[in-house]
């Protein structure tokens, strides 16, 4: 990796002493050369792909095991996958939870588990022990009835504790309304679904989901590829489990006409607004790069149009952003903001205005140039974290991208034109067939929202339609 400030430029400005020109931003030096190293990759006999990124800057190693399982439809057992993930932290057949975490805490190793795997972080001299515990937790969980009962009751209490948390409820209902409550993407656990679970459900979910199949074991940090391979062979090569196929989820339609979906939270002092539609954008689709730029200009950060408009011009909100994603299954486009109750309808109007502008008018050359510069810069900043290379490589492997996908990433960003941005904005940002999901205090915001002229559907915090909340369309 090479980066330098050219001597000529610096010397010139400094020679002038106090005569530096303050009226304009200084010119940058030549762009630093960014070289992305390739991680060492190999495959264990049971199919687990092992990635090693060697970086000795700090005496610390992180190991991550990730199973690329995809979304799981749980149905009436909603919550069982997450509960299984938590059960992995409840001890193994060799060590009780007490013993397991006494050992991990003693060496100050952070070991965590989830429904898609787990990770171990430790200072170098303790890493072997830490890694052994990670493997043990994943492969030999004890799944005891007492632990199950405890976690179940904690999860139910946890749901209760978030009942009035506007942000948490908004995140859940937005997914549920966008994808449908009975889909893998839209469903969420309730006290009832959790209450009906038993230990067998957890065992079965473990059998189906925690396995070498589609598994990626990544080492990042103060470790050589040889040492990592030795540890991977020792602790993961003999492991067996079911074979997983990545699920294909049937796509869901966007509404035929734009509608307002209002979720009532009587305690809210701010409305969480999401203006959203579903999109189909597979990884590697060339539309991805212009869409990245389009999203960045619309709502990528503090310099983007939504933020400038809703926060800096109107002071409606602390922040307004938009997001898009590529995925093997459907993903969503969302423009969102938390705004004070009385400005809810005004904020919706402004968000819609900005979306429509993206769809109908070409962005300026300056906006395009600035957005590209941001991605170029962020790409350089990403090299600060050795984990970035591991992330890029995993992305290439999982999504079957070309090997040079990230080496040519900036070329692809820099090739985007204003016409490309206009085209993809029209294609992926809906206007006449999207959802305006508002989670807030209906008493304060309903009348304003009705004036916007869209059908208004009301929901409770479980994303169920409210009885008697007929759609109202203003003439």
């Amino acid at each position, binding site marked *: 990796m090479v980066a330098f400030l050219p001597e000529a430029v610096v010397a010139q400005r400094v020679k002038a002493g106090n005569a530096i020109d303050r009226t304009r931003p200084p010119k940058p030096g030549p762009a630093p050369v960014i070289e992305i190293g390739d991680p060492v990759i190999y495959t264990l006999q049971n199919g687990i792909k092992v990635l090693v990124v060697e970086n000795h800057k700090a005496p610390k190693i992180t190991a991550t095991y990730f199973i690329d399982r995809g979304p799981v439809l749980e149905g009436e057992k909603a919550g069982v996958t997450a509960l299984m993930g938590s059960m992995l932290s409840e001890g193994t057949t060799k060590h009780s939870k007490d013993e397991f975490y006494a050992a991990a805490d003693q060496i100050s190793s952070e070991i965590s588990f989830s429904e898609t795997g787990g990770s171990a972080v430790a200072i170098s001299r303790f890493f072997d022990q830490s890694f052994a515990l990670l493997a043990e937790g994943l492969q030999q969980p004890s799944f005891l009835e007492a632990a199950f009962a405890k976690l179940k009751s904690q999860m139910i209490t946890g749901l209760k504790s978030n009942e009035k948390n506007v942000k948490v409820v908004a995140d859940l209902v937005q997914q549920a309304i966008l994808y449908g409550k009975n889909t893998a993407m839209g469903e969420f656990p309730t006290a009832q679904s959790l209450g009906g679970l038993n230990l067998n459900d957890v065992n079965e979910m473990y059998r189906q989901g925690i396995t070498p199949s589609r598994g990626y074991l990544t080492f990042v940090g103060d470790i050589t590829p040889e040492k990592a391979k030795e540890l991977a062979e020792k602790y993961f090569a003999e492991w067996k489990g079911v074979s997983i196929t990545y699920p294909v989820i049937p796509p869901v339609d966007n509404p035929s006409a734009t509608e307002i979906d209002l979720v009532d939270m009587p305690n809210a002092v701010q409305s969480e607004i999401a203006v959203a539609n579903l999109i189909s954008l597979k990884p590697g689709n060339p539309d991805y790069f212009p869409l990245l730029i389009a999203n960045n200009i619309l709502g990528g950060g*503090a310099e983007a149009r939504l933020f400038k408009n809703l926060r800096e011009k109107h002071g409606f909100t602390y922040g307004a952003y938009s997001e898009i994603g590529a995925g093997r299954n459907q993903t969503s486009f969302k423009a969102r903001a938390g705004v004070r109750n009385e400005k809810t309808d005004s904020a919706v109007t402004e968000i819609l205005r900005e979306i429509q502008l993206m769809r109908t008018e070409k962005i300026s050359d300056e906006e395009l140039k600035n957005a590209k510069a941001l991605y170029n810069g962020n790409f350089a900043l990403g090299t600060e974290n050795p984990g970035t290379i591991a992330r890029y490589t995993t992305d290439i492997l999982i999504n079957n991208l070309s090997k040079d996908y990230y080496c040519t990433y900036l070329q692809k960003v820099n090739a985007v034109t204003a016409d490309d941005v206009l085209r993809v904005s029209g294609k992926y940002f809906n206007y006449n067939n999207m959802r305006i999901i508002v989670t807030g205090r209906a008493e304060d915001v309903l009348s304003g929202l009705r004036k916007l002229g869209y059908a208004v559907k009301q929901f409770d915090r479980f994303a169920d339609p409210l009885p008697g909340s007929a759609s109202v369309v203003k003439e």
Partner: protein
Amino acid sequence: MNVKFFIGGSMAVFLLGFMGKAIAQKIEFNEYDLDNGLHVILHRDNSAPVVAVSVMYHVGSKNEDPARTGFAHFFEHLLFEGSDNIRRGEFMKLVSANGGQNNANTTFDRTYYYEVFPSNQLELGLWLESERMLHPVINETGVSIQREVVKEEKRQRVDNQPYARIINNVFSGVFAGTPYRWQPIGSMDHLNQAKLDEFTGFFKKFYVPNNAVLSISGDIDIEKTIALVKAYFGEIPKGATVSQQVVNVTPITNTIIDTAYDANIQLPAIVGAYQTPGMTSKDARALELLAGVLSNGASSRLNKKMIDEKKEALKVEALSLSLESAGAFIFYAIPNGYISLNTLLEDISSEIKELQEHLISEKDFEKLMNQAENKYVAANARNNDVAENLASAYTFFNRQTNHVNTALEEIRAMTREDIRNAARKYLNDHQRLVLYYLPGR
């Protein structure tokens, strides 16, 4: 190596022989003062083409007029509004349009502004921060827009946020009569009442080079950076000497019992808080270790007993908050199911008594030392972390920037007796505030 030197007006710029690759975890740095009192700290790390440019102003909410709270945090917003040479709305755009990231944050004791850029944009970072220090635009337009933004920030982070007001209640009780009794977000009424000249007055008083640290970390050439820093910051006039607030905490001698309500919660919480010394005190280290014994990791005493064994708590935590001139040792627990808050309180209290009566085991002590080492290794992962840690060490540890390198040694010098003695000295029932934090209203 840790060279400390000064550049005077007539003195030549020193050429520093920078050492080769830093030994593991030791942070090398150069530091000096400009004539105007600006303290400069430089750390070179060429492992990635990245540079963090930051300014830490030694002003936080504790420096505010009790009738004008929220000013320091308000300035965190206001100082993005532009300067004589940067039009309104251009500051953040200049950062992102040049591939950088930036932000700022405010605590009780200081405000921290930073940009992280690809390393060929170092000079841009210096220009932006020097413009902000030299001649920011503070006018009615910016003030009135940022007032609304800050109100939204408060709604989002406090008013709409479950359990967010615990800290207000705790600090107003534990730090009664001191400038730590209000939060950095401050009072919206005060911000509404404040006139423009009050804001400009606050700026002139606190945002002066002699009350700031310019801390730069990343892929830089030290000698060239020194020249650039002088070119951009040298002309900024020195301000009047800033005298820091004296914080005299009135000791709690009888337990304070308080109740508060939060409309955003369903489950109550029990909270306890004790008064402790400021961050440079040796006892502050002991109290951090005590918090670790109680709740760092699943095998810690409170987690193990209350969550796993008795299954009576959904969450329990003890933490030691060390501010510049005082601190607070705080615990809280949220019940699992229908357990009473008093049961949780009794269980936490008995664990604290245990720590007053008995030394922790050698093995537990070793665990704490490993945890401290881990924290230390993780603390300097990115250039912006390094820049902030260097600036904090200088600002708060009696100008001992090298505290970033000795912090771990300080902890390793602690004994089991130190830990027990701190529990005996600070964590007695009669010295605490107990808050029943309940759903409703």
